[in-house]
């Protein structure tokens, strides 16, 4: 009986293990193989080239541009996204009427995929007939090349990414605030903490687990953001100003008939290591703070 049960556990795990083996573990190994092999015009890997792709990558100024673009995109989406959500949640805590309306408004972007949000913003950003420039014209300002001006394109994509994630951040932080025991807040109020003092010295520190979680998760999400760039800034936009790591994988490997899977795989492995490090940090901290509290 027991022996049969042992087999049963493996039988129950088999479907999941099979999927992971074929579509995660094998590709993981294959990524390293691809990144150390050349590729022919059809994208099939050819002879072993060692660390050539990585040497090329590290001596290619484009690579460092991609890295710094990725870093900029990440910081510009994560910081305003998390801090903006924190500000909104604290404001909603000031016991005013109509909170539910605001909450529902901030939850609306949940309904939108990255693709649909990006397409809407593409219409809004349209240089000639877009409503963004329409409004600028209304106040007498010069039109902006939201997606065509190399100085603006990254910011324009950043706005979409923040729009997509703000609601989620608000939700997680609201849940965090709701979980703060009322007596702690009451005690702080009795001690004379009110308004902003109460928020900054009592509520924010109590939200640190949520803030930490959101920062790591948003960072990982921003590092993986692809759709908004593909829709709004194909080929990385003017001057490649919106070419992030993930986009470089697609650009080198697939976009416009490119098929340099070796270089694309080298980019993929760089992305893999960055995300792995961040996730390891997250697991390490959350393991203590969330799972076993």
């Amino acid at each position: 009986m027991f022996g049969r049960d042992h087999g049963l556990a493996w039988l129950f795990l088999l479907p999941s293990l099979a999927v992971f083996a074929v579509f995660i573990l094998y590709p993981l190994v294959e990524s390293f193989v691809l990144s150390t092999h050349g590729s022919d015009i059809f994208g099939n890997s050819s002879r072993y080239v060692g660390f050539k792709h990585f040497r090329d990558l590290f001596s290619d100024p484009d690579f460092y541009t991609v890295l710094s673009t990725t870093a900029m995109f990440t910081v510009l989406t994560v910081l305003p996204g998390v801090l903006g959500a924190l500000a909104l949640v604290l404001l909603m805590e000031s016991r005013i009427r109509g909170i539910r309306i605001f909450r529902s408004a901030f939850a609306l972007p949940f309904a939108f995929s990255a693709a649909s949000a990006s397409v809407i913003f593409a219409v809004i950003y349209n240089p000639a007939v877009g409503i963004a420039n329409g409004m600028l014209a209304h106040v007498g300002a010069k039109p902006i090349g939201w997606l065509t001006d190399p100085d603006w394109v990254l910011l324009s994509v950043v706005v979409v990414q923040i729009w997509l994630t703000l609601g989620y951040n608000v939700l997680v932080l609201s849940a965090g605030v709701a979980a703060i025991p009322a007596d702690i807040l009451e005690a702080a109020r009795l001690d004379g903490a009110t308004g902003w003092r109460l928020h900054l010295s009592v509520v924010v520190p109590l939200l640190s687990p949520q803030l930490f979680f959101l920062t790591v998760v948003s960072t990982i999400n921003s590092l993986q953001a692809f759709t908004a760039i593909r829709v709004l800034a194909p080929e990385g936009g003017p001057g490649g100003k919106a070419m992030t790591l993930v986009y470089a994988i697609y650009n080198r490997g697939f976009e416009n008939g490119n098929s340099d899977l070796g270089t694309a795989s080298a980019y993929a492995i760089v992305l893999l290591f960055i995300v792995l490090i961040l996730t390891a940090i997250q697991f390490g901290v959350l393991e203590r703070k969330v799972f076993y509290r």
Partner: protein
Amino acid sequence: MNAIVRDRLAKVLVYLVLIAAALAVVFPVYYALAGSVMPTRDLTKAPPALVPSGLHPGNFADVFNAVPLGHQYLNSVIVSGIITVAQVVTSLLAAYAFVFLPMKWRGAVFGLFLATLMIPWEAIIIPNYKLIANAHLANTYFALVLPFLASAFGTFMLRQSFLQFPMELRDAARIDGSGHLRFLWRIVVPLARPTIAAIAVYSFLSAWNQYFWPLLVTDKPKMQTLQLGMSQLNNSESADPRLILAGVALSVLPTLLLVVFGQKFIVKGLTSGAVK
């Protein structure tokens, strides 16, 4: 300035900031819905109209002529549906094994599940693409669903939920003669229903919103998903904002209804991701 005036002022300021933020968040949603019924002149005059000058439901018919949106809608429903059901089933089986069944190397195998959560899909997308291409599965449902039939995240969530069941229940699983599948279906599934619903919502939305993978493995319009078809409206040189917005409105309708009427589920489904 006395305290009452200062309080009033602070409150007004709070309202102003919240209203400005809410308007900024809601505006793109409003504009997409309003624009979807606007006649062309509303969208192409300068400055463009904010309110439709008249209802133009013909936009929706024109979208279906521009791209095979009906096919793509169906593809998205089928693909997301298969992925959701499969993830719930495979996760239930795996979580059940971890909690209720005796096994060797339980910790190691569970660690392996958790480890897969750390791998960003984008980093292994190229070998996966080659796998599908070499198996001549491009432009098939297989390509769109096969890599996503299991979910370490779903398994993890269900395991957490099972572990909170009373001890006696787990003992009952061991001695109950009625068989494990029966026990899973009759006892465990009903008890874990809220978690299952959350996982289902999360799986469905993730699958529904996919973009990168379908972009690589499908290029026939009739095999593409809604997300690709809808964004295709924006690609052509002659992109017509009227059609684009009508396409977006059609494509977000199901999820918008889900958010408006099923906010509780969505919130639970999405925040359950918060412990990922």
